[in-house]
């Protein structure tokens, strides 16, 4: 069930996991949209020649996935801040899962803190971050 007010949020609760579209097609479209040329975002073979494990998902697209996940959980949530650390490349066409957990709830001002992690199928953390989110007060 989607969250609509701060009173519905439980400290320590897990957000529903989110599987982002990390396909090469999406990665390529996104890189073109933001003007990031370069084969590392669009071509597995060329990326391998650069020493990568394959074409990678741009860091800011990963950040976008994290925010989209929060909006799936709470559609009217306002993102006040999000900080992300790109620990290791997210490789396109590999399945990744995003998890999130509520680490602070402030009912008085309607703000929630959420820790977020992007992990690959081996369970390796590739990106992590923290978001501060504003929710309506009932």
């Amino acid at each position, binding site marked *: 069930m989607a969250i609509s007010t701060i009173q519905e949020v439980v400290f320590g609760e897990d957000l529903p996991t989110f599987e982002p579209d990390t396909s090469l097609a999406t990665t390529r479209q996104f890189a073109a949209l933001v003007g990031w040329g370069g084969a590392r975002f669009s071509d597995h073979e060329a990326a391998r020649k650069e020493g990568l494990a394959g074409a990678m998902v741009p860091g800011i*697209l990963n950040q*976008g996935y994290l925010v*989209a996940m929060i909006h799936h959980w709470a559609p009217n949530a306002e*993102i006040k801040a999000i900080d*992300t650390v*790109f620990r290791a490349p997210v490789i396109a066409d590999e399945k990744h899962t995003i998890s999130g957990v509520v680490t602070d709830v402030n009912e008085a001002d309607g703000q929630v803190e959420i820790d977020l992690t992007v992990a690959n199928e081996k369970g390796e953390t590739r990106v992590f971050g923290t978001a501060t989110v504003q929710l309506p007060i009932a």
Partner: protein
Amino acid sequence: MDQDITAAREKFLNQDFDEKSFSVPAEKTIEYARLCGETAERFLDASHPDFQAPPTYIASLSGSRALPEGFPRFGIGMDAGKGIECFLPVRPGTTITGRTHLHDIYSKTGRSGRMVFAVSRIAFYDAEGNLLANSDSRVVMREKS
């Protein structure tokens, strides 16, 4: 704090070194939102009464330079992460202005030596001069041993 870091902070922090204007086309912000997996209508539907760019859209906007002229080269720079702060929605169809300054400089020393971090912040303003959002890029420079 190391002397060279203190000197760099005194010389470079909180001084704007770049200014650039950005148009915010609706079709681009909608596509950005769609590719990120957004489903909220205020990011996807231009006729929505609260239509706005997705919060992380500003992270895709780069200034003309990432570091100020004369900033010391501590080592080869790598992307260490990004952060945003949102104060007001960015409205598609408008033009916004980004002003860049160094927000922080600090170092960490680990087993492999010292790493210097520089946080470059672009502050985005609307045409009325209202601060809409900050976009931070952290660059880490590993010193040659």
